[in-house]
């Protein structure tokens, strides 16, 4: 496969705005899962990973006025995109040749549910609800920075952002572009907080990925974007990348709409595909950033899939959802950026809040010091619909 260079990245989540704050929280083992503060929901018994900024504060950071059309998904997305474009040294004019693929499912649901009671009085162009559409959030995220060559919104539940990375990488391989900007953003909403609650997969405490007594996930929110480039583009622009996306895979579990199969077939196939594309063997991976939501079902299924792939070559595994909660459509790109930080600063991402081993399950790593050099990291993102994705990020 041609090298897919990663030349810029940006992130916003419950553990901080920007990579510097994020790195500090990861290395301090400081969780961002807390009591509900910003979302106007009665479910304050549910711990969540909220970005610690109000919409107004996010607008202030961007230097723009508040606007009723602004979706929280878009506001978080802008902060992350700004950081990525800046690092990649991409200016306004450069964007004309760059496709933008952004992932979201919630989109502007926060706007819609704020005005749902008055919907009958609102007409089609009523500002407050005109931006509910997922595509609107993508456009709003891009708007301050310039005009991209094209924009598309990918929506495959919790594997969305990873699939945006994969789709962008495929475009580079097909020669459709030299540079792509990919990732995702998702805010909390009452709609899906209640939905996940109705599925009875939320933990009323901080989540415990891979723990015997795990009781579910905590929802989170955030955004992250990555800039992917071909070799020719990197040379032409004179940028010096540190990382590559060396492999990826997507497979379908084809088992159930929301639950994963007991032996994690889709996950297994996705990881195998990623390794194969990267030309790597299981023993070449130094750390696995698991999907690890903390639900009884996922952690069991994913444990089995990982064990099937890696056998006796099992590297340290952890889930960072104990830091951020499950950021759903944005989780793939947020956690990819965490993995880049791990590669850059050579530390393992610890699994917080783990106490007891699962039967036949993965025992996650809780310390940060690696055994040797971390060269390749595998990261998983599994979505409802059996949509299982896996990527491998490597240090140059």
């Amino acid at each position: 496969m041609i090298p897919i260079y990663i030349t810029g990245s940006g992130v916003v989540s419950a553990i901080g705005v920007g990579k510097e704050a994020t790195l500090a929280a990861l290395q301090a083992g400081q969780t961002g899962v807390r009591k509900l503060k910003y979302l106007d929901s009665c479910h304050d018994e549910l711990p969540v990973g909220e970005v610690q900024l109000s919409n107004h504060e996010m607008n202030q950071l961007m230097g723009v006025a508040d606007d009723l059309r602004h979706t929280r998904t878009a506001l978080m997305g802008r902060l992350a995109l700004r950081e990525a474009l800046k690092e990649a040294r991409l200016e306004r004019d450069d964007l004309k040749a760059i496709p933008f693929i952004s992932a979201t499912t919630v989109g502007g649901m926060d706007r819609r549910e704020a005005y749902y009671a008055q919907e009958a009085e609102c007409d089609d162009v009523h500002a407050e609800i005109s931006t509910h559409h997922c595509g609107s959030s993508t456009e709003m995220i891009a708007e301050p920075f310039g005009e991209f060559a094209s924009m598309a919104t990918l929506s495959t539940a919790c594997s969305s952002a990873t699939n945006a990375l994969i789709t962008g990488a495929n475009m580079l391989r097909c020669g459709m572009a030299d540079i792509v900007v990919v990732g995702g953003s998702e805010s909390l909403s009452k709609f899906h907080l209640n939905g996940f609650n109705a599925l009875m997969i939320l933990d009323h405490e901080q989540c415990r990925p891979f723990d015997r007594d795990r009781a579910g996930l905590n929802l989170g929110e955030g955004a992250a974007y990555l800039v992917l480039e071909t070799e020719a583009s990197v040379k032409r622009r004179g940028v010096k990348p540190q990382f590559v996306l060396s492999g990826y895979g997507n497979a379908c579990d084809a088992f159930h709409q929301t639950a994963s199969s007991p032996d994690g077939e889709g996950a297994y196939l996705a990881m195998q595909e990623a390794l194969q594309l990267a030309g790597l063997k299981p023993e070449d991976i130094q750390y696995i950033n698991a999907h690890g939501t903390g639900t009884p079902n996922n952690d069991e299924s994913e444990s089995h899939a990982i064990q099937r792939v890696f056998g006796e070559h099992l590297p340290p595994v952890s889930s960072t959802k104990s830091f951020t909660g499950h950021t759903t459509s944005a989780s793939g790109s947020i956690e990819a950026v965490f993995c880049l930080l791990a590669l850059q600063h050579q530390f393992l991402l610890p699994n917080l809040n783990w106490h007891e081993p699962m039967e036949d399950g993965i025992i996650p790593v809780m310390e940060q010091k690696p055994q040797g050099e971390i060269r390749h990291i595998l990261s998983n993102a599994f979505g409802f619909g059996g949509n299982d994705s896996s990527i491998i990020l490597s240090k140059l």
Partner: protein
Amino acid sequence: MKTVAEIEITTEGIRLNGRPVETSGVGADMLNEAYRHYVNDYPKFFKMDGLGKLGFLASELLLQQIDEERFVPREDRAVVLFNRSGSIEADRHYQSTISDADNFFPSPSVFVYTLPNIVTGEIAIRNKYLGETSFCVLDHEDEPKMQQVIEGAFQDGVTTSILTGWVDYSDHSHFSANIKLITNKNE
């Protein structure tokens, strides 16, 4: 890339490889009746939302006509779908279960469908497709953009055919599907 088969479904009727398929009724009723007439062996059909039923039915009618073994696990077929409306019909239905504070009963079975890609999962579960699945929301039925994504999907060295196209369902009397089976063989 070669189109092996194609199906179009509108609220008025169905055309398979250019020829009309006999149906009765219009809108959502037409989909239910067509399922009963041409498929009728998958009761989970009735648990699906509108988008799920539309995508499922389109794939069933199309795949029934293909000369190949079905329901055997395979990794080389991808399912890549597109629309504009996301999962809006299911979203509205689910929202109605949480809108009234005095009658507040979030429905888990409806919530499951408030993701546009669940339809790709339903097709994969039925057919045992373990290959790539994806869903993209676009402003309109943008053929060049859809073509780009589809070409990209063949890059993994595993996918040899893709069930792909537009499947949009905004309510029980506004929907359309245009699904193709495409292979990367050129003969």
